[in-house]
Each structure stands twice: as structure tokens, then as C-alpha cells.
């Protein structure tokens, strides 16, 4: 890639491709939302949430009790 491309795109370190700013935002948003869902289902403290997700938490081997 030439330098003019480098000024417009964020380059990745190992992968040959280049990643657009839009992709960086999309991936960041996806990781945040994914983490939020996994945390809510797997770790959220309220007893009611725990009881609803109890069997799944055991099944996924998340620390439960």
C-alpha cells in the first residue's frame, strides 16, 4: 500500500488487507454489544436474571453460585 492510502485508511499489522474507519467502528460496536449480551446472560447479578439463566450458566460452565 502507498502512503496516500495510509493517510485515508487504518492499516492492520499482520493482515495484508486494509481496514476502513467504518469497519473499525462496526467491529468496536459489535464487540461492545456482544460483550454486553454475554455479561448480561452469563454474569448479571440480580437474582431474577440468575434464576432465569441458571441452567444455561451451569451448562456453559460460567461461575454461577
Amino acid at each position, binding site marked *: 500500500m502507498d502512503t496516500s492510502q495510509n493517510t485515508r485508511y487504518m492499516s492492520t499489522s499482520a493482515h495484508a488487507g486494509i*481496514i476502513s474507519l467504518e469497519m473499525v467502528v*462496526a467491529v468496536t460496536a*459489535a*464487540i461492545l454489544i456482544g460483550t454486553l*449480551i454475554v455479561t448480561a446472560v452469563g454474569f448479571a447479578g440480580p*437474582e431474577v436474571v440468575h*434464576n432465569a439463566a441458571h*441452567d444455561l450458566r451451569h451448562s*456453559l*460452565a460460567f461461575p454461577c453460585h
Partner: protein
Amino acid sequence: MKAFNSILLTALLAGGLAGLVLGGVQQFTVVPMILEAETYETAGAEEHEATHGHEAEEWAPEDGIERTFWTVLNSVLIGIGFGMLLTACYALRGKVTWKGGILWGLAGFAAFNIAPALGLPPELPGDMAAGLEQRQVWWVLTVVVTAAGFWIIAFQPKRYLKLFGVGLLALPHLFGAPQPEVHTGLAPDELRQAYITATLMTNAVFWVVLGVFCALFYRHFTGTTEDPALA
């Protein structure tokens, strides 16, 4: 928004479907064992109080269809959550074939199940364990560090960086998981051993299905053509 929409649609459909598979397989593998372990837990009512606190005061789904419904619903939700994380990785890599999806799924299984299980074996209801918050912190750190280690080993070309990745994989286990003073539980050991095998098998199936579905749906939504070199 197009980049995000592709990830979101993939996670909703592939993750939701993989979550349904997880919810279904669970009903035949781990859930009967959880229910069996609870019979020992209920029999030892005093220990039950000690490990569960004031659970009885709060709402909990009725055994039967209601309990199954919540377990399957949460399985679909977590499938979507894991699907978001996995598809985000796919998006960073650009192209992932369905065969590559199997490898990605196995890596997810290793990061989210094998690595934590090395320090914190899957628990049945009624098992003794160290404090919940300490275990949760160790669990999260182990998953994050293991995933980072895999990424570095797989995608960093330099050997010393790969060695650093291997070091990351070992780190949580050198540090050690929080352990109870005595390893015991209310359920018999045979059930606990069978349970560990059952959770690992169930989650392996889930992760491979998730890896393949996410690869297929993401390629569908992005129109990425197959490149065998990147499988």
C-alpha cells in the same frame, strides 16, 4: 452502517440458530444432570441455604416447560452475543470460509471453555467453590488473555511475538484459579465427572456450529467470495 449491519444480521441469524442448537442439545446432555444434582442439593437443605442464600424469595421459573423456555431463550441470546464477538473477528480478517469457521469455532471453544475449565472445572449445583466474584474475575481474565494469545499466535508473523502469545496462554494457569478449601460437592463424583464431559462436548458442538454458521451468513451478507488461501 453497512459494515455493522452485516455483522449484526450475521450474529442475529447465525448466533440465534447456533443458540437454538445449544438450547436443544443441552436438554438431552447437561440439563438432566443439573436436575439430578439439584435433588442432592434439596436433600441437603442446610447446605442449600449456604450456597444459594435467599434464592427462594425471588422469582424462578417453574420446573418443566417454563424452565426449559428460559434456558433456550437465554441460549439464543448468548448465541447472538458470541456471534457478535466471532463475526467481529471475521470482519477484521475479511474472509472466512466454512472450513475456517470450524477452526474459529474450535478456538472460541478453547478460549471460552477449555482454558477456564483447566482452573475452574464446570460446576454442578451444590459444588463447593471459591468466592463467586474472584472466580468471575479469573474467568473473564482467562478468556480475554487466551483469546489474545490465540490471535497473536495465529496472525503475528514474528516468532518472538508468537512466543509471547504462548506465554499469554500459560499466564492465567501459572497465576492459578481461585480454589475452595476443599473440593467437594453434594452430588456424587461420578455425576460430576460425567457432567464435565457433557458440558465440554455440548459447548464444542455449539462453537463449531456457531463458527460455521457465522462464516456462511457473513459471506452471504457481505458477498465475499471464497478464497481457499484464507480458509
